[in-house]
């Protein structure tokens, strides 16, 4: 069966995902006059970039002395030296022009009294290579991500980017070692659409939904990484997943680090600022992996609030004025979702699954690379949270993701422009959509089977409990067995909705398949890495081990267990040192 002609489109460039990364890439291309299609399963303004609160960092030095080298150092150290330093250098240098360009596009940053972009403190960002906190995070109240997403979408409208909203990309077309386009499923009517294109950017965001408690949107199901994985592309550094310290208890909604950047305290049951013990210099502004672990340890030793599994985020000393001016949104979250008044009451918080350091491996031009030797796959790009450049190494610093998605989204757009000038729209076989159509059709019409939602719930639980902030060899083996079992059960799952129009039941089941793939790679990579580094903490191997493990992992999909390979870390400026704060 072939897709009808009117459902075949050709574009010099196709972008999958309309978050910060996808939109900036689209903008680069559109400004070059290249007809660009952006496919997104949500309306662009629904992308999770809009949920980012705290800020975006760049060493502008608007308040105090700052240099990109300091930013680069913090990034490398924050990532526990697993960061590729060539990439971190690009990030820290280009951050400055990127933020200024955002301002030129109209982003309404908060301002200093003399009219410059306002900046605030954020965890792990320091002056002079670790001396003291520095004001590096540029922000627009506590909706910086919202403003970035809106501003980029607005500019895309201005420059005539073509949006295909609510098109769910379900397959990549990679033939003869080169990229030829994507296959998408139009949610409104269930029709398949083929997009032929020599250059495809994956910018599908994260996959926090594989954990039970997460700050991530329901839509963040790792579609891009899983599709790449299924086409033989490895997933890099999947064992490094970040747990953010301050999630709303039980549901994981994020209370931004900006709350601590503005001076909030973390307290245990005895009312102590327990970070004194774990990061005496930076206290609450230490990096996230350190704080999340400290919180778990406090809880484990019985100092959680009322003996429970959470601690308090205390803002009461900041005063109403600061809270209302600088943290309006997150205080509202506490009111709506917890019934707590943060101006007068401490807010119960617990770590929440937040950010994937790992993902689709790319080089600094955002080209997808497929092996230890960094061989690029022509025409395929990845940027944003789904990609791994890697600027975050083993642990990302707050505000470094927004700048990552923009710097590398921008680079992806520029390199794609170069690529499409040299390559025409490729041919694709007439029945290219057939395999995925058949898969979806089988899922949609399977007569009896298990409820996929139960599988998702079990996956989220096992990942949270066995592959979370703390891991051990045995917990990971348990997790691996469960994931394998769930994958098996998934093959027999049945969706209830048999319709073609807006069948979200079908798509959620499809997305569960992506989550299972990401989970498999995550658990396998975590099992293999017998050390502790950044967000990956093995209780059975609590030390960092640079002689053995100063390398990136690559998980390849096989019929059975994923195959693990490793590639070296790029070290240009800063030799690995013990990491203390």
């Amino acid at each position: 069966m072939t897709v009808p002609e009117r459902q075949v489109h050709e574009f010099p460039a196709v972008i999958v995902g309309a978050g910060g990364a996808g939109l900036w890439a689209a903008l680069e291309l559109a400004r070059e006059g290249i007809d660009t299609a952006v496919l997104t399963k949500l309306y662009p303004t629904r992308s999770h970039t809009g949920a980012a609160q705290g800020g975006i960092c760049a060493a502008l030095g608007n308040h105090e002395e700052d240099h990109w080298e300091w930013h680069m150092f913090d990034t490398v150290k924050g990532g526990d030296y697993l960061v590729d330093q060539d990439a971190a250098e690009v990030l820290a240098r280009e951050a400055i022009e990127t933020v200024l360009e955002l301002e030129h596009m109209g982003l309404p940053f908060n301002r200093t009294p003399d009219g410059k972009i306002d900046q605030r403190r954020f965890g792990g960002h320091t002056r002079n290579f670790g001396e003291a906190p520095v004001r590096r995070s540029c922000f627009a109240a506590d909706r910086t991500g919202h403003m970035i997403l809106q501003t980029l979408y607005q500019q895309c409208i201005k420059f005539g980017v073509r949006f295909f909203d609510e098109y769910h990309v379900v397959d990549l077309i990679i033939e003869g070692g080169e990229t030829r386009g994507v296959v998408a499923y139009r949610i409104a009517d269930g029709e398949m659409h083929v997009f032929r294109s020599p250059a495809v950017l994956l910018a599908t965001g994260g996959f926090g939904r594989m954990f039970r408690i997460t700050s991530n949107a329901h839509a963040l199901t790792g579609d891009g990484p899983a599709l790449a994985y299924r086409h033989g592309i490895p997933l890099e550094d999947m064992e490094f997943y970040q747990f953010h310290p301050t999630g709303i208890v039980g549901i994981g909604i994020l209370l931004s680090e900006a709350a601590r950047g503005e001076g909030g305290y973390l307290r245990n049951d005895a009312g102590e600022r327990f970070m004194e013990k774990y990061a005496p210099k930076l206290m609450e502004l230490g990096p996230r992996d350190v704080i999340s672990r400290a919180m778990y340890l406090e809880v484990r030793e019985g100092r959680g609030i009322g003996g429970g599994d959470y601690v308090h985020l205390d803002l009461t000393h900041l005063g109403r004025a600061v809270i209302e001016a600088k943290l309006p949104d997150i205080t509202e979250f506490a009111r709506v979702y917890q019934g707590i008044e943060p101006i007068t009451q401490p807010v119960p918080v617990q770590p929440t699954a937040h950010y994937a350091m790992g993902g689709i491996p790319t080089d600094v031009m955002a080209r997808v690379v497929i092996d230890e030797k960094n061989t690029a796959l022509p025409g395929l790009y990845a940027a944003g949270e789904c990609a791994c450049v890697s600027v975050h190494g083993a642990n990302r610093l707050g505000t470094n993701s927004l700048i990552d998605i923009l710097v590398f989204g921008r680079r992806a757009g520029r390199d794609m422009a170069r690529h499409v000038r040299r390559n025409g729209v490729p041919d694709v076989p007439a029945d290219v959509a057939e395999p995925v159509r058949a898969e979806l059709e089988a899922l949609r019409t399977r007569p009896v089977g298990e409820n996929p939602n139960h599988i998702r719930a079990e996956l989220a639980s096992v990942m949270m409990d066995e592959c979370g902030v703390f891991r051990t060899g045995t917990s990971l083996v348990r997790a691996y067995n469960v994931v394998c079992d769930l994958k098996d059960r998934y093959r027999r799952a049945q969706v209830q909705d048999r319709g073609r129009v807006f069948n979200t039941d079908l798509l959620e089941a499809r997305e569960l398949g992506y989550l299972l793939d990401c989970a498999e790679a995550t658990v396998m990579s975590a099992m293999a890495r017998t050390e502790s580094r950044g967000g990956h903490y093995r209780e059975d191997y609590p030390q960092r081990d640079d002689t053995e493990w100063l390398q990136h992992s690559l998980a390849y999909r096989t019929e059975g267990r994923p195959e693990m390979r490793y590639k070296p870390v790029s070290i240009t400026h800063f030799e690995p040192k013990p990491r203390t704060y």
Partner: protein
Amino acid sequence: MTAQRSVELSARSSARARPSGSRRELLSWYLMRLTGVALFVLALTHFSILHFLFDPAEQTAEFIAEERWNRIFWRAFDWLLLMTVLFHGFVGMRTVLLDNIRSERNRVLIVYLLYGLAALVFILGTQVILTLPVRGQGA
């Protein structure tokens, strides 16, 4: 396989038709407010006089001719009220009708009917105010 450039599904052209009738809508919005303020004085005074100062039971045709309209001031007052109320009332009704009629043809038709009615009321009202002979001691 031949392919066609992306079709009707892609982003539609977003601009609406050229803005139209802006001046008229602005004026009617503005004048609705002005006449509203004027009516607050005129209409409420009028109502108070006729219902609080006098009682309807007293207001025979003779009374109107002899007492109420025996001064030019009150005739002018009522004529002014008539003009404001006509403007305000008819523009207001036009708003109500335009809000609720979607078909372009009916819209034009009904608004013209409304204008016709306005003209009629204007003529009747003006005529009676102007032509009713002044009796008693006029001013």
